[in-house]
């Protein structure tokens, strides 16, 4: 029995309505409890902020495309290394940190749960191999649907229940947590080197449109009672004027959920929030998107904020990456995956004085500041696409301080600055709101009931930051905020101290969450035999060698749900 007492901190626990009150957090055997005995190890958090451990809903940290990015870019790693110690493994950064380094760096930021948001079904075994080697944090991954032949065919035939059962089978076979959709239909087109535009174009060789795919998987998601909504990277990503596709995508599933529950998550919405008709007049569609989100409860979004830095872009949206290669002239990787999806990688540097980059920077922040309900927008950089997760403290300082924003704004492209609404926005986030967009909100969106809060029974994942909210005014002293958030004074994972003053002191193995949605036996049996009939025609792998066994996860944590079908 190990006991821990975090004493006298200013606690921010929005899910339990606690906003910076002085309180003690008692921990026993990895869980938050009412109280502990006098023998408990005491952490003196006097004058510090105490929050639940961070929960990242969207960060590309593991799997085939991430590793392809590592292989593509030795020049990215040599400037940023982690040394081997008796506790920690050696590794490298920078924009695509090696797996061990990823775990340590998240823990240093006070993050304790991370989701890899795009993994090809066929290659999810690879993703899990890397997640197994990502220490400290709990994790999970979202397998890619919506360009896979089975989903498209079931939906095209109008066999929704079979489609849902197939998805349930796949989630079990790949040990996935949620349905990810990337440029539905468009990636199948890209596998022929072609593009789709908007939601109405027919997918080549498949008599179906992106609009039908999105609605279909959204309904399947609900039939399966999956904990998270569908997680959507929209069509037309990075194209000019694409904010309309984003709104169209959100509106496409309006009314599917009933009781005001979110039914769709639009990810890295910054990349799909552009107005304009050409590169020279591109602008921010954030006000329009924020307006839609403010008026409709069925949507959640994450920022996909960019940071001005050299990074590596990577997505299953292979066609977009080709476009970025043509624009930037940088090296380009593409990797299409049979039957299912694609992937592309291009190194990219976001520049302050680049008009489009400056607009992008503005879109992300405008979204976060114009969407009123912090429970429905989350902080991400779509790591490493908009910048690395290690830049979260910088983004938090922009959200909390108008002065910090003005300071950065003064240095961006002036035409872009004049075009953005951002200079006129006064809103500054509170610490509670920061706790929502970085942990409480994301845990809620992922339906991780034991995460994102510090109530009795919660997992004892806690971040302690050396920052006194009664003395520091984040609006003015944003630098102090940034500095404190960069290196947690303490990070506690499952009741064990893993970080002390920004240094790793222990590196345990985190859980891997996956969802098992129980579909009726008859339906599952039927669908399984249908998949088996086509499997060897579709794939170059036998069905029995495709599905993963639970034992392949070092610390498997199955989430059971019962499907409606």
């Amino acid at each position: 029995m190990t006991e821990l007492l975090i004493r006298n901190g200013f606690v921010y626990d929005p899910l339990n309505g606690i906003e910076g009150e002085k309180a003690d957090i008692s921990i026993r055997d990895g869980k938050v409890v009412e109280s502990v005995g006098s023998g408990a190890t005491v952490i003196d958090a006097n004058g510090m902020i105490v929050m639940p451990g961070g929960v990242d809903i969207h960060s590309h940290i593991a799997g085939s495309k991430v590793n392809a990015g590592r292989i593509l870019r030795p020049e990215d790693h040599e400037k940023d290394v982690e040394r081997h110690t008796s506790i920690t493994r050696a590794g490298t950064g920078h924009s695509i940190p090696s797996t061990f380094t990823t775990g340590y760096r998240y823990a240093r930021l006070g993050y304790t749960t991370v989701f890899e948001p795009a993994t090809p079904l066929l290659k999810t075994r690879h993703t899990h191999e890397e997640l197994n080697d990502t220490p400290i944090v709990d994790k999970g991954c979202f397998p890619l649907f919506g360009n896979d032949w089975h989903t498209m065919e079931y939906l095209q035939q109008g066999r929704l229940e079979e489609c849902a059962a197939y998805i349930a089978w796949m989630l079990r076979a790949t040990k996935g947590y949620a349905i990810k959709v990337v440029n539905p239909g468009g990636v199948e087109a890209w596998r022929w080197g072609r593009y789709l535009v908007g939601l109405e174009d027919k997918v080549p060789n498949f008599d179906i449109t992106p609009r039908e795919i999105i609605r279909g998987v959204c309904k399947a998601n609900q039939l399966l009672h999956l904990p998270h909504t569908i997680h959507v990277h929209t069509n037309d990503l990075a194209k000019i004027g694409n904010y309309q596709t984003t709104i169209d995508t959100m509106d496409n599933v309006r009314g599917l959920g009933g009781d005001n529950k979110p039914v769709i998550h639009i990810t890295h919405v910054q990349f799909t929030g552009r107005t304009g008709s050409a590169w020279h007049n591109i602008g921010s569609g954030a006000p329009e998107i924020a307006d839609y989100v403010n008026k409709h409860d069925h949507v959640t979004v994450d920022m996909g904020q960019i940071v001005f830095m050299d990074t590596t872009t990577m997505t299953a949206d292979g066609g977009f990456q080709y476009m970025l290669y043509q624009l930037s002239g940088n090296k380009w990787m593409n990797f299409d995956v049979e039957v299912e999806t694609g992937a592309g990688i291009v190194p990219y540097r976001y520049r302050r004085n680049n008009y489009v980059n400056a607009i992008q920077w503005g879109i992300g922040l405008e979204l976060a500041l114009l969407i009123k309900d912090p429970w429905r927008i989350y902080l991400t950089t779509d790591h490493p696409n908009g910048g690395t997760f290690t830049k979260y403290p910088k983004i938090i300082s922009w959200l909390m301080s108008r002065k910090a924003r003005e300071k950065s704004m003064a240095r961006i492209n002036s035409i872009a600055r004049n075009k953005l609404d951002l200079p006129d926005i006064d809103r500054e986030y509170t610490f509670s709101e920061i706790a929502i967009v970085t942990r409480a909100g994301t845990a809620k969106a992922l339906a991780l009931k034991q995460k994102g809060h510090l109530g009795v029974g919660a997992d004892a994942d806690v971040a302690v930051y050396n920052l006194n909210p009664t003395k520091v005014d984040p609006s003015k002293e944003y630098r102090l905020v940034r500095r404190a958030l960069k290196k947690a004074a303490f990070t506690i994972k499952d009741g064990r101290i893993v970080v002390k003053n920004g240094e790793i002191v222990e590196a345990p193995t985190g859980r891997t969450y996956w969802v098992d949605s129980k579909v009726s036996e008859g339906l599952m049996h039927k669908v399984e035999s249908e998949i088996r009939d086509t499997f060897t025609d579709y794939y170059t792998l036998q069905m029995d060698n495709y599905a993963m066994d639970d034992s392949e996860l070092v610390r498997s944590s199955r989430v059971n749900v019962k499907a409606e079908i």
Partner: protein
Amino acid sequence: MTLSKKIIPNVICTFCGATCDDLEVTVEDGKVQTLRGGCSTSLNKFVNYNVERHLTPLVKKDGKLEETSYEDAIARSAGILANAKYPILYGWSSTSNEASRAGLELAEWVGGVMDNTTTVCHGPTLLGVHDIGEVSASLGEIRQRADMIIYWGSNPVHSHPHHVMRYSALSKGRFRSSRKDRTMVVVDVRKTDTAKLADQFIQIEPNSDYELMCALRMAVRGDELEQDIIAGVPAERIEELADLMISCQFGVIFFGVGLTMTQGKHRNIDVALSLVRDLNSRTKFIIMPMRGWYNVAGANQVSAWVTGYPYAVDLSQGYPRYNPGDTTAVDVLVRGDCDAALVVASDPVSNFPVEVTRHLAKIPVITIDPHPSATSLISEVVFPTTIVGIETGGGIYRMDGVAMVTKPVVSPPPGLHSDVEILQDILTHVKKLKMGQ
């Protein structure tokens, strides 16, 4: 005594990079009797796996290898590695991902160089990828879509016997129902058995791949070829090939060590990768290296996710450093820099330059291998081990990067340990020695 007989379906072949996963192995009385669905190489591997092997660890005493206990062999190995200033850990392509993972951790603890056999086959491919990037796909994409297939400096009929049938010209796909729907071209210095299957064979002068590839690239871009004959190939023929490549719906170049290890090396790859990249402004085209050993791709993947680099990783500074030409196994050994070596599932003595063998003969070498080899003969410690995919399971990566899990089909001989167990035991011992210091 009753004989037990079982037929195991969907067995993954652990020989070449194609890792066919549809073998049917018949096991009788604990021994592999026969195999269906495999090529002649896999038949040989599976049926003869138990021939010529030793079952007890060996250590060198007075210049001779003598049998010893497992514990003694572990202690000796750990001592050698822990006391070495700059050991090299080499091999890793014919064993599991788990072995590579353990090897990397060991390399961190002993401050060594971790390199895999990529260094002598597709090392130049990776250097090319660092420069240019790579447009590729999983093998099923080629099977389903490709109507133009080029093998360049590669002879899969012998190196990857079922490759053409399972994944390319002779396979059946959704959009390509038969061989007639595909054009197959072979570029090589001689008419290989693979070339006999092709619609077109282009014979190229040895060591002139770079010229031909550049000329093709020019032709694809619409530039004029000013010479009549390039690399032994008439200019018109090159232009015809360029036209074929541009006009196909989905093309692929598979290339082998005939491109990576001939004159030009990574520059050949640079231009090949650039050619394919350029082609994507006209049509869909991809390129893929014909990786040799069944898990050489896995050795790269594991190394990349643990260290950031796919091979030739120097951990002597306590963090990963990568400088091919400096931190690559052959270079480290030719320079005589390393003072101990751990060789896993490979035989550098029989296929590295002679200077390497000379140096290896001077330093303590630890070999982990199921079978005796030239390297094991000069070793200080030899661990016999179980065979991945036959006697023990483990994760591997197919040549196109698809992760698979192999399972044992028979039990290993009693007392024999797997690569992973041996490496972990050495690691545990090394940690004790290092923490004690």
